[in-house]
């Protein structure tokens, strides 16, 4: 049995390298790989095989997580095209977008002022979801047209929604704690 670490994440799961991914097919193929390589299958194997099993499943898990998430998948597609990302320097300079983000964050912070804070928070989460959906569409269009810069901008903006999502979750925790 062989495992090729140089294959792309898409090839790992026998999928085409495009933005649209059939999530159920991805999940099926992921499970097949896990059944084959999971360390539990190598309990009585040599130390070397045990270590390999951990490495292979770590790789498969990383691949699965990347392809399951829209922002990570978009970013990975660009990386396959040779577009590089620099964690420290790359960020969007779209002032209008940044203002919008700041307003959303402030609204989440101040959600306690509403009579039904949880409902208000849900509404803000919906608003964020709509904006995110628009960005995903922008990415798909730019990617199809091979406008790499525009596609990269969309990916960088999508990054903000991950943090927004975390902020909403933390707020939800706090509000629920108060209710109990």
């Amino acid at each position, binding site marked *: 049995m062989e495992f*090729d670490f*140089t294959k792309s994440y898409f090839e790992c799961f026998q999928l085409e390298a495009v933005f649209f991914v059939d999530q159920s097919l991805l999940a099926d193929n992921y499970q097949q790989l*896990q*059944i084959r390589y999971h*360390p539990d299958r190598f309990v009585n194997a040599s130390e070397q095989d045990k270590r390999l099993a951990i490495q292979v*499943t*770590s790789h498969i898990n990383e691949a699965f*997580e990347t392809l399951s998430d829209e922002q990570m998948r978009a970013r990975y597609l660009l990386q396959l095209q040779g577009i590089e990302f620099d964690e420290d320097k790359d960020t969007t300079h779209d002032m209008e977008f940044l203002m919008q983000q700041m307003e959303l964050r402030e609204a989440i912070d101040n959600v306690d002022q509403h009579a039904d804070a949880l409902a208000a928070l849900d509404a803000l989460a919906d608003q964020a979801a709509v904006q995110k959906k628009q960005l995903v569409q922008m990415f798909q269009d730019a990617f199809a047209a091979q406008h790499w810069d525009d596609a990269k901008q969309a990916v960088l903006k999508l990054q903000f929604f991950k943090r927004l999502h975390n902020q909403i979750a933390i707020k939800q925790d706090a509000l*629920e704690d108060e209710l109990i």
Partner: protein
Amino acid sequence: MALLQISEPGMSTAPHAHRLAVGIDLGTTNSLVASVRSGVAETLVDEQGRAMLPSVVHYRKDQAPIVGYEALPYRLSDSLNTISSVKRILGRPMQDIRVHECSYSFAQDHQSVPRINTCSGARSAVEISSDILTALKQRAEETLGDELTGAVITVPAYFDDTQRQATKDAAKLAGLKVFRLLNEPTAAAIAYGLDAGAEGIVAVYDLGGGTFDISILKLRKGVFEVVATGGDSALGGDDFDIVVSEWITQQLPAELQQDQDLQRQIYIQARELKEQLTQTEQVEINIHDHMFVLTRDQFEQLIEPLIKKSLLACRRALRDAQFSKHDVTQVVMVGGSTRVPRVRAAVEEFFERVPHTDIDPDRVVAIGAALQADVLAGNKPGDEMLLLDVLPLSLGIETMGGLVEKIISRNTTIPVARAQEFTTFKDGQTAMRIHVLQGERECVSDCRSLATFDLTQIPPLVAGAAKIKVTFSVDADGLLNVLAQEVNTGVQAKIEVKPSYGLSDHEIESMLKASMEHAKDDMLMRALREEQVDADRVIEALDAALAKDGQQLLNTEELSQIEQARAELLAVRQHSQQADEIKQAIKHLESVSEEYVARRMNQSVQSMMQGRTVEEFGE
């Protein structure tokens, strides 16, 4: 091309060579061991037919510890040497232990690993847990008639890295090979056979003696995936007992409220009352002729805040899994505390679904673990049952200002590996310290400190030029490994692990060694050491006396005889490994000096009669 050859797993196993494997539920209150025999998983019982082994260890001076039912009476009569609920402190640093709730005496000598003083020495939670595991291992080997090839040991899904590591260390110390650490709720789902074709979302509500876990499992084509776990590692049936005993104490007059022994009695009685209230509507209590009644209604009011706390954790786990409670297709109840009718009702109300309660909630985890152990031992080739687990708590590193940067977030499917690049901030910097933490909070002080890594031998370059790639990997048991490499030169930075808490491999090794050495060797060693100390003392005393009055009281021949015996003793003391030889040499010196000692005594008596003090002649 990085092509790897991987052999087929489990293929070397001969089909009919059944490997003995057990599942162990190492519980806070009770522990169990189970095994698959003739295709059926069953808990193994003791000589009196009891499956449960109370997780209580009683230590005695110079004798083996007593574990289980026989240790229970000593909780009252010898409470300091009788340890129960040790799982609550397993893998926890001293500052996390609610000392006021444990009545044990903690040793002050060790910096971070808490040790409990007992009459047979200071014991760590790992050692105490290992004594429980040893008892279970013995029971299994006696029942099954052969040595075990391995075990699956269950842990609360909420256990962090140090708690999991401590569990593995305890097993190692007990001489058990651990196939896998398995989350308790997952084991329960396996016991209910939910892997057999069923698809859907399973919530496992596990309220044990000391811990509460909620796990959300996704079942698909025979594959278990733990999509989220949550809970509270300090919430359980023991807390029910605490609120009940607090209530009882409040009903008593003030002078009885301070009585420590009575407090322990009340606590034990509270547990019995709780159990009775699962069957009856009210119980009568009589403490030192103070009579009162506790109704089930009152009891339910007392425990309601605790149940609410558990349901809050359920909500969180569902949200982490990104499911609503309506997505849940099955609910499994685990743990003795789910026998409490109010708990069952509250869970049913919350999930709007009748929970599974058919299997004894105390045994269900051990049974599931045994089934998994059987598969992992290779007894069921072709079985495609597989468990995918997630990391229970996020892993991160300390950054500037005491904040935590998350490297791997909780509920990430494991095994997993993540790399992070670090750079030097000074010219020629060759070392760097990385502090690894586990937890969800942003501040270092709110997270559990796992380890400090010192990266050394970094090539000296200008500030920011050296790039160190640190790879954090978590294996299938949820345990962390770290690897560091300088990116440009490929130099492997050396990592020195300094566990903030827990035992290093070295410590475990030396503990293992000590426990494997024959007790006889230990005793001989101690005897030798004692004779050496004795010899030193005798020589020292003789030298002091000779310096004072040797010339005065002894003639030349006598003096040389004594000095010869002294030289012989010194030689034996320095070179002999035999306690007896040293003892003989001491005796010889003493007999040669007998006359000298007698003369000195005479002299001091005479001096006293002359009105002089003994002190002036003292050594």
